[in-house]
């Protein structure tokens, strides 16, 4: 199995950094502070957004891109204040529309590295349609979805990722809606890159950002983020040293899926072909599923996305679920222009507007 799966990505098409091939590099040595804007950060003390901001600012120097060629586009929400704090170009747009705006920017400017910062409400409530269309088109965008399972900026209503029965200002008797699993819906929407990580795990967060940045096309990164004011502790089981190892499944491409204290658990396919958690001791190493993020067919990635329990956070896989190559929208668009120009030559305005059915009056 592992070979089959590895091979599917082994040709390395779209690996490496072609995602940023056209973005000018800098020769100067960059550091975290180069990416800090002079704006005072206005999140609540203790908000998980701080950690994500630090991680992103800490990671970007790695890419060695000219910072004037980096753009952060966001919607509306606490998380969407992000661009103000980055010393790059940025747009704090309107609620839910960042993927659409970023699509226009990315598909007209291949020399830019375009990042979208959004929240669970921004991306999955009002912005759901733009998100799924960006994913299927595979525009060259890196979408960071800060999922705190709540509407923060509007002071705590439940969101499309809140667990059913959630008591909030707008649902005093509990919410009725069944939540989205952002990873599942992204895969269902033909995404080429889907990952999940956690605000507090700087190392993991950074490694996921690295892979996302390297991905040519749309990369969706769901980041579990704590809103200590309106949904504090939503992800505690994944953070608490006592529980975290036994509830978090760390996915690594090409590796058997093992987790838990001294890796005593693993993921296997059960009799009915569904994925299940088992004790490695019982099933044996060979029975373990080997993760293949590069498989063209998304069924495995989807199956993995169903392992976690969104309420208890038990058996939550983190890492890169899917990372496959597919032609990038911006490239296709640019190629079409180039091909047409090559075929017909640069447009001649006078000829165009005259057409071929004219008459002259003197």
């Amino acid at each position, binding site marked *: 199995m592992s070979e089959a799966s590895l091979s599917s990505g082994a040709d390395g098409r779209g690996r490496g950094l072609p995602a940023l091939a056209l973005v000018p590099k800098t020769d100067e040595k960059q550091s975290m502070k180069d990416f800090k804007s002079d704006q005072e950060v206005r999140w609540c003390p203790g908000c998980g957004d701080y950690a994500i901001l630090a991680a992103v600012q800490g990671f970007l120097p790695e890419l060695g891109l000219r910072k004037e060629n980096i*753009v952060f586009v966001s919607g509306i929400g606490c998380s969407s204040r992000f661009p103000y704090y980055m010393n790059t170009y940025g747009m704090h747009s309107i609620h839910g*529309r960042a993927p659409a705006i970023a699509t226009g920017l990315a598909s007209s400017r291949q020399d830019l590295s375009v990042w979208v910062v959004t929240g669970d409400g921004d991306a999955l409530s009002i912005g759901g349609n733009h998100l799924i269309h960006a994913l299927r088109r595979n525009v060259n965008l890196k979408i960071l979805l800060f999922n705190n399972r709540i509407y923060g900026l509007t002071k705590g209503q439940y969101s499309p990722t809140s667990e059913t029965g959630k008591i909030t200002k707008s649902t005093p008797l509990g919410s009725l809606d069944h939540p989205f699993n952002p990873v599942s819906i992204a895969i269902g929407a033909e995404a080429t890159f889907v990952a999940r990580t956690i605000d507090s795990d700087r190392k993991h967060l950074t490694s996921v950002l690295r892979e996302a940045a390297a991905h040519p096309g749309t990369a969706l990164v769901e980041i579990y983020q704590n809103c200590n004011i309106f949904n504090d502790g939503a992800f505690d089981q994944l953070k608490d040293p006592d529980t975290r190892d036994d509830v978090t499944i760390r996915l690594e491409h090409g590796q058997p899926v093992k987790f838990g204290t001294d890796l005593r658990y693993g993921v296997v396919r059960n009799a009915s072909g569904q994925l299940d958690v088992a004790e490695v001791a019982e099933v044996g190493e060979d029975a373990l599923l080997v993760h293949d993020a590069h498989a063209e067919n998304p069924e495995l990635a989807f199956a993995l996305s169903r392992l976690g329990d969104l309420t208890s956070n038990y058996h939550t896989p983190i890492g890169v679920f899917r990372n496959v190559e597919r032609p990038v929208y911006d490239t296709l668009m640019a190629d079409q222009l180039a091909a047409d120009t090559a075929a017909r030559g640069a447009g001649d305005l006078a000829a165009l507007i005259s057409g071929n059915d004219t008459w002259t009056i003197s």
Partner: protein
Amino acid sequence: MTKQVKQIDRVVIRFAGDSGDGMQLTGDRFTSETASFGNDLSTLPNFPAEIRAPAGTLPGVSSFQLHFADHDILTPGDAPTVLVAMNPAALKANIRDLPRGAEIIVNTDEFSKRAMAKVGYATNPLEDGSLDAYNIHAVPLTTLTVESLAAFDISKKDAERAKNMFALGLLSWLYHRPTESTIAFLQKKFAKLPVIAEANVAAFKAGWNFGETTEGFAVSYEVAPAKLPAGTYRNITGNLALAYGLVAAGQRAELPVYLGSYPITPASDILHELAKHKNFDVRTFQAEDEIAGIGAALGAAFGGALGITTTSGPGVALKSEAIGLAVSLELPLLIVDVQRGGPSTGLPTKTEQSDLLQAMFGRNGEAPVPIVAPRTAGDCFDAAIEAARIALKYRTPVFLLSDGYLANGSEPWRIPNVDDLPDLRVEFATEPNHENEDGTKVFWPYKRDPETLARPWAVPGTPGLEHRIGGIEKADGIGTINYEPANHDFMVRVRQAKVDGIAKDIAELEVDDPTGDAKVLVVGWGSTYGPIAAGVRRVRAQGGKVAQAHLRHLNPFPANTAEVLKKYDKVIVPEMNLGQLALLLRAKYLVDAIAYNQVRGLPFKAEELAHVIQEVIESV
């Protein structure tokens, strides 16, 4: 036998048939024959919202009206002098528009009992005398077509389909139209099916010969070419001219063009057209919805492209919030609204002018947006360039308000010399524009040009000018988030002042008042130009004195508007809505404008406007 030939100065023909009968195509062909012959002309296509409404029914009737003359004309004509009716439904649906004495060419083959019953003809109108007031030519078009194609190895169905070409041939003979272009057209259109191509050509010629030979048509008519201003001409529809205007704007601004759009009648053809011109550095993005369409255009504008979104009324409604963002971001953006009948889905394929106030006020907060409106099909080209000029120079979204009549109607258009088109080049910011107390140089995204009040356009990729913009109120100059009462008050007023200031930069309102002593002024905007001007001509022809002024800029109004209005005792404002421009003029200038309104999904008739104007003149 040689037939009599009559010289006439103008003709109004209406082709009418089933949605499936190809009347739009027939009309188009006759139009381009007529155009290349050098007549002045004006057309009015009219079709149902359904793709192929059921055959033989009244809602299924599709028609194409063409007015051509040996002098310059302004409208597709009030009433057809010739009707070509391909079936009973077409006859029934159009008969009431005909003046007595009009010529009617009917396809008798379709007048079966069932077909007539279907539209409520108890008896055959061709026989029961109900049409005595008209000059009927009963022609078995289908039979004649099929017979004429007997030699061809094609199905009966295909043969029958060619009947519209037979009719076109007949009409072409009747009015001495040149036939080459149509023959060439058919060969090109059916290139892949040579037999069909030949068959259609044969039907077309057969129609011509039928006119030549049959007694049914004793007379044929000649309409001499019109003496239009010297120049090279082509026939053009409003949507095509508008699309070309957008391409031209990109070229003259030396900027890539980015169209973010979602298809909607009657605007879709602009998207279709622009999609053909990728070699002009034109990108077209068919978005998932209208909001994504404008969003992408705005994103591209942030990146330094000429961002455009095209739509119709319902789409504008959806874009409202994003337009507000564009106002706040102060980025150039064109919003093209090809208006159609409303409210809601309304009458998707009919024309209306009822989005003016939506364009003015359809956003939350104080969010002023300049508005430009073309007056004729050809003028859509210039209006698009003017709208782009304002957007680029003032860093603002701009509305371009066309409508369904301009979009689909056509007229001869004098092709401009490309080098005479305005230079739309803009300068991107490349340097810091502000010095801090400590002497460091920085970039302030909202530090304005004192002249235009426009803010600098600094595009990503420009080193040292990294900045963040957004929809939250920002501090004057530096552009950071700011909730200060005084700053907000200032920013709201300065955004308004920027738009108001454009009045200094646009042409004054011209008044056509030949005698200079008219007491009544007719003010219009957009596509009503033709009918109003035609109405005014009639009044003057009868010795009446009336002035005409037509607004191209609806926001801001030209600087001399107040002055113009005050000069007249009475001001009439005809609109295809319930009085939207009238409301704006009354509010701004306290002039007791008389609103004359019709909301019929059709352009005004010149006669009707002449009548209204006459009445007002007499009332003075």
